[in-house]
């Protein structure tokens, strides 16, 4: 679709759901194929309807109109934090660990960049077109530049070609699916050699594949924990918009680090207490929280 068509679609969609959204009701954000420009159109359309500028109706906006520093990197930063904590829990250091990543969009690319900065070796990356492998560790700044120019990691000169099947069978310490749903299935789950799988995408492991990974002792950091950095900084953006005061990037990152660290260890403690995997433990934490408030608020009628 052209830019004009995307803008028309966005404004029409917002107009259709206008009664349902608002800073106190429902706050949209970017997802697959939507970005900060689309969020700017959401904000403008809503503001035109209510008759005043309302930045807190949507998050993931450009910095110039109420966005938050650190928002773009937030999901990837959260992925880096939980990967680091998971490695520490299993008794190794993320520094020097080898990592394979599926997906090089906003989440995959930022995760790769931050993990490389933390000293990890990113040995394989695949995307919609192809992939690249380098056992010594890919040069991530150069790969980011290549992906920016060619819209894919495929054909990157600093490594050899890599398929998705090869990525999931890599001799790596950590594998990070950062693309779409249902990528690790009964077909490729038995071949996974990594000790840790970090679900940066939503639902990348099918329930059957999850059972296989559990039986094989793979430590899976579930999506509702692993990719919650994005919604956390979206929450920070909403707070800053309502407060009318904007934080430094170091403040955003420090608060995100604290939230993700707490969340990881709350889930880990729950998993040890109930002797269940991290996914079930994460659901226990979440259900207990929402269930308690539901009970306290009562049924209304």
């Amino acid at each position, binding site marked *: 679709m052209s830019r*004009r*068509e*995307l803008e028309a*679609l966005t404004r*029409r*969609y917002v107009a*259709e*759901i206008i009664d*349902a959204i*608002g*800073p*106190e*009701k*429902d*706050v*949209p*954000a*970017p*997802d*697959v*194929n*939507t970005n900060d420009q*689309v969020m700017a159109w*959401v904000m403008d359309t809503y503001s035109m309807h209510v008759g005043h500028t309302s930045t807190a109706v949507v*998050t993931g906006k450009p910095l110039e109109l109420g966005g938050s520093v650190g928002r773009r990197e937030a999901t990837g930063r*959260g992925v880096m934090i939980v990967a680091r904590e998971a490695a520490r829990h299993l008794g190794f250091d993320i520094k020097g660990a080898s990592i394979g990543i599926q997906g090089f969009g906003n989440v995959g690319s930022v995760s790769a960049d931050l993990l490389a900065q933390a000293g990890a070796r990113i040995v394989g990356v695949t995307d919609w077109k192809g992939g690249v492998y380098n056992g010594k560790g890919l040069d991530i700044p150069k790969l980011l530049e290549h992906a920016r120019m060619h819209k894919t990691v495929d054909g990157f000169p600093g490594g050899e070609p890599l398929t998705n099947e090869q990525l999931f069978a890599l001799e790596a310490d950590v594998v990070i699916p950062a693309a779409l*749903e*249902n990528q690790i*299935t009964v077909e490729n789950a038995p071949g996974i050699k990594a000790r840790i799988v970090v679900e940066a995408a*939503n*639902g990348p492991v*099918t*329930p059957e594949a999850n059972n296989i990974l559990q039986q094989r002792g793979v430590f899976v950091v579930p999506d*509702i*924990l692993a990719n*919650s*950095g994005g*919604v*956390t900084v979206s*929450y920070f953006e909403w707070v800053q918009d309502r407060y009318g005061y904007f934080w430094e990037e170091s403040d955003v990152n420090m608060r995100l680090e604290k*939230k*993700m660290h707490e969340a990881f260890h709350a889930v880990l403690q729950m998993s040890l207490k*109930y002797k*269940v995997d991290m*996914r*079930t*433990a*994460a*659901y*226990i*934490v*979440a*259900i*207990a*929280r*929402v*269930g308690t*408030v*539901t009970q306290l*608020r009562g049924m209304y009628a």
Partner: protein
Amino acid sequence: MAEHGSIFRAMLQEFDEAARLLHLDPGIWKILTHPKRQIIVSCPVLMDSGEIEVFTGYRVQYSITLGPAKGGIRYHPDVTLDEVTALAAWMTWNVAP
């Protein structure tokens, strides 16, 4: 996604296991396994070709128990109400914020 079945049902499987271990109250269990609100809209758009195209849009607010609903806008030809409902539920179960 159709060949893998319902994504929302996969979410419910994950939910049920945890709810059982928690001995979740059956009434609360029912509430938490139903989306609060699902909206379907048709969005007519005048395309560059001069033709009118109608796009179907969804918005699911799974829970507003803890505060406002929150979640992404996804532009993809394969988007379904089932997928959006699952994504909305996962937003509710997000652990960190």
